């Protein structure tokens, strides 16, 4: 069975939304701790991050949100953020406090594999990564590898990236860890196509958009992805 990971930005409604996503069939929740200048994000997650920050979602509030999500769902919850947040909060303190609030690992988008080994995290590899770097990321990663399916920022695309197949092939040759692909995946058909190659699918921007319509809409959308994967 393929893993379905759904990304949501921490906001006051997020615990209820995360529960709906799990009801719809999500196996893992990525929780975005918003940063003011997120270099890897396309317009959807950038705007959602700006809105969350304007509503006061700083690190402390995000940790509370994480704990509330934990109280409602049993699946792994992975905080996803930027180095600036850990730099300010303290790297080891971030690990300790997210774990205490119920997190499984973390994703730090702009922290290369060479840096801050004291933060166990899911490493990201991209189509531009060399085989040497893919091997290093696979060796250091915490649980699974995040395949960035395209060279670009997050956000829906009309097609699955043609670069993904090659990245999966190169990575498979180097490691046995599970591979979940994200960036640019938004429709059930795309999720199904990606699941043909990878062990899991991460859906971010489109989930954030649908979440704005409420928990029922999100549950239905996640269920449509789930049935495409199974």
């Amino acid at each position: 069975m393929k893993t379905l990971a759904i990304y949501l930005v921490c906001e006051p409604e997020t615990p209820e939304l995360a529960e709906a996503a799990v009801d719809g069939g999500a196996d893992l929740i990525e929780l975005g701790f918003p940063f003011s200048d997120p270099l890897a994000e396309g317009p959807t997650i950038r705007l959602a991050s700006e809105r969350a920050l304007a509503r006061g979602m700083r690190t402390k509030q995000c940790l509370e949100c994480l704990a509330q999500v934990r109280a409602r769902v049993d699946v792994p919850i992975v905080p996803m953020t930027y180095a600036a947040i850990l730099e300010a909060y303290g790297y080891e303190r971030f690990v300790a406090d997210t774990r205490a609030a119920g997190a499984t690992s973390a994703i730090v988008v702009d922290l290369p594999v060479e840096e801050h080994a004291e933060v166990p995290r899911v490493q990201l590899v991209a189509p531009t990564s060399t085989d040497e770097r893919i091997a290093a990321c696979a060796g250091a990663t915490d649980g699974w590898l995040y395949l960035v399916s395209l060279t670009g920022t997050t956000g829906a695309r009309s097609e699955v990236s043609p670069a993904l197949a090659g990245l999966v092939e190169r990575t498979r040759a180097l490691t046995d860890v599970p591979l979940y692909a994200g960036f640019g995946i938004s429709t059930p058909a795309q999720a199904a196509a990606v699941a043909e190659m990878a062990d899991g699918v991460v859906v971010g921007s489109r989930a954030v958009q649908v979440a704005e319509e409420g928990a029922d809409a999100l549950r239905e959308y996640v269920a449509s992805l789930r049935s495409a994967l199974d």
Partner: protein
Amino acid sequence: MTSGVYAGYGGRYVPETLIPALDELEAGWAEAQRDPSFAAELDRLGREYAGRPTPLTLAERFAPGKRIYLKREDLLHTGAHKLNNALGQAVLAQRLGKRRIVAETGAGQHGVATATVCARFGLECVVYMGAEDMRRQRPNVERMGLLGAEVRPVESGTKTLKEATSEAIRDWITNVETTHYLIGSCVGPHPYPELVRELQSVIGREARAQILGAEERLPEVVVACVGGGSNAIGAFAAFLGDDVRLVGVEAAGAASLGTGRPAVLHGARSSVLADADGQIADAHSISAGLDYPGVGPEHAALRDSGRAEYVPCTDEEALAAFHRLAETEGIIPALESSHALARALDLEEELVLVCLSGRGDKDLAEVLGHA
């Protein structure tokens, strides 16, 4: 931290997608530095195209009773020191086989310098500029258009240099295989801070020789404005080993070194205007080129070690110095450089070197609007 660190500042805080391109840039830069033909080409372009060496001018009427020398980067082609860096990076980009250039710009000086070198070498050029900066630096937007560059307005956040830089980096992430990111200051992920410092260090090298020729001694103090800090690091570099005071002047509302804290912005750890959670704060300056919440990591290290000091200057003080230089010397300085001029007047020292990093034609509308 493994590479590109100045006393804990610097590094590479970027998505994995960019790391191989930074490795490639670092290797290409190291190779270029070992290749005498690279230095020879830059030297030739500097003399024949850019107008190097720029003169050193004694500003006697501006500062009676002192000997303030101005290093005249305002006389460089395109009107600011930015061309030193743009020329060097354009030559480097071609060595790396990149035919598309992206850049960010605040005041528009770096955008114009980038558009200029792209026209000179036949490279595709896209410049990101905050919509607010496009309003207050209109002439430079028009110049970039004439030079064949595409200027893309950035409407997010404060619509100034911080957002323009983020958008340029996002473009680079998307087009990294064909594109060189021609960053405009000594900021960003390693190796950019070092690369830009080296390309701008021609300012200090020339000025040091020129002032020794004129005065037969070194200046007591070198003064330069600091936004990202490229003209300052270029002016300071030649004097780091001398017994010469180094003073960087920040805009009071954008004093990343004076009032910032360690934080991560645009791929590097430095001193940044940020809150306790690491969220980046807004900067405010009349001068678009200084209106940036970050600063080059080497400046943060020079501040911490005490080798250089960094002082603030208000919009009003900069405006007063702008008018004073125009009226006493017949030189219209950039508003950025006017910050350095204002503080240079207050210093106790008698023999002062100021980096006049650019000319002020672009600022006329902004200055007259404050009259």
